[in-house]
């Protein structure tokens, strides 16, 4: 395998793993964020504060906790997940879940209650009202997904601790950058950094364009 093939494989692996992690986080975090944004209940403020606090969880600390859980002697060792791409997806999804929840909550909360009340006065039922709030929150939800994906693809601690930086298996862009830096291959490390940044900027440009399309479609 040439260096170019290797870099391509690592880049695709990063996209697949972190993309899957962000999608998993969205599938779980979006409903939580919408509920927290729309409903008022006891303990709500505690929950939103908790999720915001968890945004600062150091990646290496989460990596350590997950290592202890996934280790063959650990409580989840029987799953044999350690040093697999699946462990990385789970770890990164957990890492970015607080971001997904917090940004969604904040967005939905800021749209509501006016839009929801308006929809309800115009004769919409509760479900339609929630849909109109979601529609108004689109920009914030897209930002939540983008921020989650960015954090997932740029983190190092979880990938090193539960992925192990295995060549051909769990080696992703950030662990490669770290490895090439310790190996003294500075140019290669910098090239990988440029790849990561170019990818993420392109991704966000495409996401913005897509968002405009969807917005146009939703209002037509």
């Amino acid at each position, binding site marked *: 395998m040439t260096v170019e093939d290797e870099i391509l494989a690592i880049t695709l*692996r990063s996209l*697949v*793993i972190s*993309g*899957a992690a962000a*999608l998993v986080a969205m*599938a779980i975090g979006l409903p939580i964020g919408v509920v927290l944004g729309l409903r008022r209940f006891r303990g709500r403020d505690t929950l939103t504060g908790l999720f915001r606090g968890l945004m600062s969880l150091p990646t290496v600390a989460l990596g350590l906790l997950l290592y202890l859980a996934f*280790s*063959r*002697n*650990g409580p989840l*060792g029987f799953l*044999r997940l*350690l*040093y*697999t*791409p*699946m462990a990385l*997806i789970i770890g990164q999804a957990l890492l970015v879940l607080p971001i997904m929840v917090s940004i969604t909550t904040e967005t939905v909360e800021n749209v509501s209650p006016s839009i929801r009340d308006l929809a309800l006065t115009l004769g919409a039922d509760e479900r339609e009202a929630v849909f109109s709030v979601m529609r108004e929150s689109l920009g914030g939800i897209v930002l939540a997904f983008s921020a989650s994906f960015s954090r997932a693809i740029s983190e190092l601690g979880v990938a090193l601790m539960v992925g*192990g*930086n*295995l*060549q*051909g*298996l769990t080696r992703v862009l950030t662990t490669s950058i770290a*490895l090439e*830096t*310790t*190996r*003294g*291959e*500075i140019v290669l490390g910098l090239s990988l950094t440029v790849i990561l940044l170019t990818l993420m900027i392109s991704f966000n440009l495409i996401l913005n364009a897509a968002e405009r399309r969807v917005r146009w479609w939703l209002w037509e």
Partner: protein
Amino acid sequence: MTVIGSVAAYYYLAYAARRQVVYIGTTTSLYDTGLLDRLGADYEGREPGVTIAFISAGTGIAIEHAKNGDVDALLVHSPDLEHQFMAEGYGVNRKIFAYNFFVIVGPEEDPAQVNGTTPDEALQRIAAYGQASGQAVWVSRDDMSGTNQKEKALWAETGLDYDTLRQEPWFVSSGSGMGATLRVASEQRLYTLSDIGTFLKYEAEGLIQLADLVENDERLINVYSAIAVNRTRIQHVNFEGAMRFITYLVSEEAQNIIAEYGQDTLGRPLFNPAVSVLVSGGDSEVASWIRSYAFFEYQGTLYECPPPWRVGDYGLYS
């Protein structure tokens, strides 16, 4: 998008799961040279369907991984920790596969004047210079790595206590890997102990400005061994996979790769193959250094792996 993502993830994971993986815990100083990738690729070419997965960490954490059953074999360079690991029943079938020498490196102007002295003398001069000047003079990795263990042993041989020295102002703890520590030494004009591989690589890349001051001394010998994780102590380990890889490591093909590695890129080999030294020229000077440094005593005789810690017959010991 979700559908595409999950389908891609599924195929990717299914592909990854089909291969048989042998997990090898190893030390950063060995992995960062690139030697293991070369050996792993060669081995995978010989055994299709097998993936050799190197988990690169300091010797301390690598041994923790092995005790938790997260790796199938270890490639490490700390005889004391290895002996403890095997005595606790975690490891079997130890085989010494390579050696090289640590070097004491430092600023080219060499303020403590250690160039060409023995390690013992050099460390005493560095400590005396540090205590007299009160400025930072020595940087230690201080991370329980194999290199750090060696450093502690060297300080102990000079009659100085590492844990006391650590508290003194001239003694800096970097708490990081060999490459990062060499860079600290280069930037701050400090002395340090390094493995030869990382030092040569960083020097060739122009990343550090340090001189190689003390080398090729018996006390600086650095011996790398392979140990299989004991399957009767830790269930689930891929013992046969680990033993096949260890058998490969001591084969002539692998030993030749070790002997030549670094010659083309750095102008000199980074490692010396150990198997032929210990077998045929068993009475050479280096062989006796390896014996006294890295062999374990059992009932009055020195062994690279004492008989009670050998399992099965893989033709490793003759």
